[in-house]
C-alpha cells in the first residue's frame, strides 16, 4: 500500500479537492483506494467524495470515533466497516474507493468526540501508544482492506496531526501552495523539515511533490519567489521539461467552474468534464502514481481528443465555407456522452460491448452519429459493431490525435458503414440534407437541393468555383484542380432547380460582390490576388446563365434587396445578353442620369437641385431595375382586344359599357383554367400566340410584364413545362428591352426599337423588330445550351405569327451581321432587308 498525504501550509488551495480527484481517478483505473480525512479541525472530504447527508445523519463512524475507541483501550479493535463508507466510482474497472471521513461533522456529536480525543490521544506520550494508535489504523487499513493506495487529507499548517500524517505515515507528500510569498515560504519550511525527518527502518525515503495551485496569468514572477520555487524543486519533484535539466513545478490552474462547484471529475471519461484544471490533474497523476502513469496518459489523450472533437461539433467552423455557415453546429443537448452499448453481437469470439464517447442525436432523439475513441483497438471492429447493432448513420473513430480521425458512413436506408474520404465532422442538418453524409458528390448535393435543402446550394456554388479555377491553386483543403466538366454538371444541375427559394439562393450566391475584403482574405490566400477576378468570372459564367435558366419567379425575387434598401442586384445576366450577344452596352445608371439631366434641363432649377435630381433619378433607376420584371395578373392587351372585337354590343353601346363588360369577361376567362386553356389552344391553333401582347409585354418605360396564367395555359396547350415557357418569354421581352435601352459605340440608345403601345388592335409592333428579337432570343438560348429552353422556344414559335418564326433562317447569319441589322433597326426598322420565311429552307 502506498500512502500519499496531501498537505498545505495554508488553507483554501484545493487540497481536499485534489485528493478527491486523485482517489476517484485511481479507482477508475482499477486501483483500490482508501481516502482518509485527517483534517479533524475542518473535515470536509465527505462533502467531496461521499453523500454528506448520509455521513451526517446516518454514519456515526470515522477517524475520530475510531481513534477515540482505540485510545480508550477498547477490548477489541473497532470494525473498519463501521468507520468507512463505500464511494461509487464511475466505471466497472474493478477498483473501489472507501472513504474514512473524520466523522459526522459538523454534527455536535462529532465535535464532542473530537474534544474527548484531544485528551486521550496523546501523541507525545512516552509509552508510544499515541503513535501506535496511528500506526495501527494505517496498518489495519493495509492488512484488512488491502488497498493499493491510502490517501490522507492532512491538516493545514503546523499541527501535530498534520505533522504525523506527513512525516510518519506517508510515503509521498503532496505539498500544495498558492502563488504568494507567504504560502511559498511556509511550504518551503515544511518541505525542508519533511526531508530532514528521520524515517523508520521499514520506510522508504519520503517523496515530496510540491504543487502550485490556483495559478493565474498574474502569478508573481519576482526573484524572491523564483528563488523559493527553485529551492522547493531541490527538495521536491517537479514536472520534467523537454530537456533533462528543465524541471518545473506542477501547477494547477485556477478554474472558476470546478473550483467553485468543487465538482470531482477525477476518472471522468466524459469530454464535458475536461478542462485545463482536469488536464493539469492528469499530468500530475502521471508523476504522482507511477503505476497509473500510462493509464493517466491514456485518459489524458482520450479526453483531449474527445473534448476537441466535442468542441468541433458544438462550435462554428473557423473555415469560411458558406456551406458551413448555414449548417448550425450540434447543440450540447443533442450530444450524449459516455454511452456503454451492450449487444449480443460477437466479433472474433469477443463479447460485444462498445463505449461511445459521444452519441449525437437528432432533435427527435434518433441516434445519428457515434464518436468512439479507439487508440490501440482494431479499427474494423468498431464500424462493424455499430453498423450491425445500431441504426447510426455515421461513426467517427478518433485516436490520440483527433485530426487523424476516420469517418464511416452509410445510406439512410442502412447497409454497412464504409470508410469515406470526408474529413470535417458532419453537422446535424446534413443528416437531413443528404442520404449519406459521407457522399457529398455533386449528384448527392443536387438531390438535396431538389428536395428543397437550401444549405446545399452554397456547397454547390463553392464547388463550381473550385472546379472552375484554371490551374492548380492551393486551397484550404489542398490543391484545387480545374475541372470544367464538373463545373458544367453543377451549372446544369443548378439550372434545373424547381424550388424557388433554392433558385433564389443560387442567384444570390453566384452574384458578384458577395465577399468583402475581410471575407475574401479569409477565403483566399493572402498572396493570391485572384479574388475579384474570380468573382467576375462567377458573375459571367455562373450567375449570368443561371439568370436566364432559373425560374423567372426566383430571378425576380433575387433582384429584391435583402440586406439593405440600396443593395444593387447583379446585371451580369443582362450584360451577357447586351454586351456579349448584341454587341451593345447596358448601363442603366448612365441611362437614368441622362434622363435626369434631360428632365432637369427642362425644369427651371438651380444647379444644386439639378444635382439632387440626378441622385434621385439614379436611385429611381436602381429601383426600377429591381422592379423591372413583374408577374402580372392583369389581362394581356391582346386578349382584351380579341374579346372586344368579338363583342357585338360593343358596336351598339357606349365604350365605357363595352369596356366594363369586356373586362368582366376577360377576368372570368383568366380565372377559369379550362376556358383559358381552351382559348389558348385555339389561339395557338391559328398561330397567333404572340409573345409580346399575349404572353407578356414590354413597355417603353422599361417594365417587363409576364402573364403567368396565360403562359401556364399556353404551356399546357403546347405540352411544355410552364417554367421554361416563362423563361423563353422573359428572354424574348428582355431582348426587346436591351435592344431599346442599350448604348451603341456612338453612345446612342435604340429609341427606334419601340414595341407597340397596344392602345388599339391595329397598333402592332414592327415584324422586323419581332424577327430580330426572336433571332437574338434563339442565339441566347443556344448560348445557354439548355435543351428545355430550346425545346420550349421552338415549340412556341411553331404556334406564333410569322415574324416569330423567322429566327431559323437568321441562324445562318454571322453574329456580326445580325448585330448590324439590329443597329439599323434601332435607327429605322423600315431600312432592313430581312430574309423571308422561304429562306429558312
Amino acid at each position: 500500500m502506498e500512502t500519499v498525504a496531501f498537505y498545505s501550509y495554508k488553507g483554501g488551495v484545493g487540497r481536499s479537492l485534489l485528493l478527491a480527484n486523485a482517489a476517484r481517478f485511481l479507482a477508475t483505473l482499477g486501483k483500490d483506494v482508501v481516502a482518509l480525512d485527517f483534517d479533524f479541525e475542518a473535515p470536509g472530504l465527505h462533502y467531496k467524495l461521499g453523500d454528506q447527508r448520509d455521513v451526517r445523519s446516518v454514519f456515526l463512524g470515522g477517524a475520530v470515533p475510531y481513534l477515540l475507541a482505540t485510545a480508550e483501550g477498547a477490548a477489541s479493535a473497532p470494525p473498519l466497516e463501521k468507520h468507512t463508507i463505500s464511494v461509487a466510482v464511475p466505471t466497472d474497472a474493478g477498483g473501489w474507493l472507501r472513504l474514512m471521513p473524520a466523522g459526522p461533522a459538523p454534527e455536535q456529536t462529532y465535535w464532542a468526540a473530537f474534544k474527548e480525543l484531544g485528551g486521550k490521544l496523546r501523541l507525545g506520550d512516552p509509552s508510544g501508544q499515541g503513535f501506535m494508535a496511528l500506526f495501527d489504523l494505517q496498518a489495519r487499513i493495509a492488512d484488512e482492506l488491502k488497498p493499493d493506495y491510502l490517501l490522507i487529507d492532512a491538516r493545514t499548517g503546523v499541527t501535530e496531526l498534520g505533522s504525523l500524517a506527513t512525516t510518519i505515515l506517508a510515503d509521498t507528500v503532496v505539498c500544495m501552495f498558492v502563488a504568494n510569498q507567504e504560502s511559498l515560504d511556509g511550504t518551503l519550511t515544511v518541505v525542508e523539515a519533511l526531508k530532514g525527518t528521520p524515517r523508520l527502518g521499514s520506510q522508504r525515503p519520503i517523496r515530496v511533490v510540491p504543487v502550485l495551485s490556483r495559478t493565474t496569468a498574474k502569478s508573481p514572477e519576482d526573484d524572491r519567489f523564483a528563488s523559493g520555487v527553485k529551492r522547493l524543486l531541490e527538495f521536491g519533484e517537479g514536472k520534467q521539461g523537454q530537456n533533462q535539466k528543465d524541471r518545473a513545478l506542477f501547477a494547477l490552474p485556477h478554474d472558476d467552474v470546478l473550483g467553485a462547484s468543487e465538482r470531482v471529475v477525477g476518472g471522468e471519461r466524459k469530454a464535458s468534464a475536461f478542462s485545463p484544471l482536469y488536464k493539469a490533474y492528469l499530468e500530475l497523476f502521471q508523476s504522482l502514481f507511477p503505476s497509473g502513469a500510462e493509464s493517466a496518459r491514456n485518459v489524458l489523450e482520450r479526453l483531449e481528443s474527445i473534448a476537441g472533437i466535442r468542441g468541433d461539433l458544438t462550435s462554428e467552423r473557423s473555415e469560411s465555407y458558406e456551406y458551413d455557415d448555414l449548417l448550425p453546429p450540434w447543440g450540447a443537448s443533442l450530444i450524449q456522452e459516455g454511452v456503454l452499448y451492450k449487444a449480443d453481437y460477437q466479433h472474433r469470439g469477443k463479447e460485444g460491448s462498445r463505449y461511445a464517447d459521444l452519441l449525437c442525436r437528432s432533435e427527435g432523439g434518433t441516434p445519428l452519429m457515434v464518436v468512439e475513441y479507439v487508440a490501440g483497438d482494431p479499427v474494423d471492429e468498431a464500424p462493424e459493431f455499430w453498423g450491425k447493432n445500431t441504426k447510426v448513420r455515421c461513426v467517427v473513430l478518433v485516436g490520440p490525435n483527433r485530426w487523424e480521425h476516420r469517418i464511416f458512413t452509410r445510406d439512410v436506408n442502412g447497409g454497412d458503414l464504409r470508410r469515406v474520404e470526408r474529413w470535417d465532422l458532419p453537422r446535424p442538418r446534413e443528416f437531413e440534407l443528404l442520404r449519406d453524409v459521407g457522399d457529398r458528390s455533386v449528384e448527392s448535393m443536387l438531390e438535396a437541393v431538389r428536395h428543397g435543402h437550401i444549405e446545399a446550394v452554397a456547397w454547390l456554388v463553392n464547388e463550381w468555383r473550385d472546379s472552375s479555377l484554371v490551374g492548380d491553386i492551393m486551397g484550404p483543403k489542398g490543391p484545387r484542380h480545374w475541372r470544367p466538366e464538373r463545373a458544367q454538371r453543377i451549372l446544369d444541375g443548378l439550372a434545373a432547380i424547381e424550388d424557388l427559394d433554392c433558385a433564389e439562393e443560387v442567384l444570390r450566391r453566384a452574384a458578384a460582390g458577395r465577399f468583402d475584403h475581410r471575407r475574401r482574405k479569409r477565403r483566399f490566400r493572402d498572396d493570391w490576388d485572384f479574388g475579384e477576378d474570380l468573382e467576375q468570372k462567377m458573375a459571367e459564367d455562373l450567375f449570368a446563365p443561371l439568370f436566364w435558366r432559373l425560374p423567372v419567379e426566383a430571378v425576380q425575387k433575387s433582384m429584391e434587396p435583402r440586406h439593405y434598401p440600396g443593395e444593387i442586384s447583379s446585371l451580369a445576366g443582362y450584360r451577357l445578353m447586351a454586351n456579349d450577344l448584341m454587341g451593345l452596352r447596358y448601363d442603366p445608371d448612365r441611362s437614368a442620369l441622362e434622363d435626369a439631366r434631360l428632365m432637369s434641363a427642362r425644369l427651371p432649377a438651380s444647379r444644386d437641385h439639378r444635382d439632387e435630381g440626378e441622385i434621385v433619378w439614379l436611385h429611381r433607376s436602381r429601383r426600377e431595375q429591381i422592379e423591372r420584371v413583374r408577374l402580372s395578373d392583369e389581362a394581356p392587351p391582346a386578349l382584351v382586344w380579341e374579346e372586344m372585337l368579338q363583342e357585338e354590343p360593343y358596336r351598339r353601346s357606349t365604350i365605357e359599357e363595352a369596356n366594363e363588360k369586356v373586362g368582366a369577361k376577360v377576368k372570368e376567362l383568366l380565372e377559369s383554367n379550362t376556358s383559358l386553356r381552351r382559348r389558348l389552344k385555339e389561339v395557338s391553333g391559328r398561330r397567333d400566340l404572340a409573345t409580346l401582347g399575349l404572353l407578356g409585354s414590354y413597355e417603353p418605360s422599361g417594365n417587363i410584364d409576364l402573364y403567368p396564367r396565360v403562359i401556364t395555359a399556353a404551356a399546357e396547350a403546347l405540352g411544355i413545362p410552364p417554367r421554361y415557357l416563362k423563361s423563353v418569354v422573359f428572354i424574348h421581352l428582355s431582348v426587346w428591352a436591351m435592344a431599346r435601352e442599350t448604348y451603341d459605340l456612338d453612345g446612342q440608345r435604340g429609341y427606334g426599337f419601340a414595341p407597340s403601345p397596344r392602345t388599339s388592335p391595329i397598333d402592332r409592333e414592327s415584324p422586323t423588330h419581332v424577327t430580330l428579337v426572336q433571332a437574338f432570343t434563339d442565339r441566347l438560348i443556344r448560348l445557354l445550351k439548355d435543351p428545355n429552353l430550346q425545346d420550349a422556344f421552338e415549340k412556341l414559335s411553331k404556334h406564333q405569327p410569322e415574324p416569330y418564326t423567322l429566327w431559323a433562317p437568321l441562324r445562318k447569319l454571322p453574329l456580326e451581321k445580325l448585330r448590324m441589322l439590329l443597329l439599323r433597326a434601332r435607327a429605322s426598322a423600315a431600312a432592313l432587308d430581312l430574309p423571308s420565311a422561304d429562306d429558312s429552307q
Partner: protein
Amino acid sequence: MSTSDGPASWASKNPSPPFISQRGSRVETDALNTLVSGAIWRAEQLEAHGIRFASQAWAEVSSLEEELAKAFPLSESEGRIARRGAVRAALKAGEYARAHALADGYLADEAAPRSLKTALRKILQEDDQAIAGRFQHAAKHHTLREARDLARRFREGGAFGLAA
C-alpha cells in the same frame, strides 16, 4: 487482575511501621493498607464496568503503593510488594513515564534483590506486550521502541520538528 500480592494478608502478620503524611501527621501503615485495598477494589470495579475513571483510580492506587514502598524497606516483603504494585498501577493508569521513573528508581537501588528486579522488568515487559497486543496491526510493521522514539522526538521537536 490484581496489582498487589494482597495487602490485607501481610498487614495482619507484621507490626505496622509509622508513615509520615505530606502534612507531617503520622499515619499508621495499616491505614494505608486499608486505603490501598479499597482503592484497588474500586479501580478494578471501574475497569470491569468500563467506566472511564478507572485510570484515575489506578493512579490513586499507584500513589498509595508508592507511599507504602517508602514506608517499608526492601528487605521486607511488604516493601517489595508495594514497589511492584506502584509500577504496575502506574502502568494501568496509563502513566507510562511515571511507571518507568518508579521502576528505574527501584532497579537502581543496590539493595534491591534480584527477584524484585526480575519482577519489575517482567511487569514492564508485560505492559509492552499488552500495548503490542492492543495494536496488533501496528506491531507487525513497527516496534514499540520506534514508536516511543518518535514520541520522544515529537515531544522535543514539536510538529515537523520545527521547534527543536
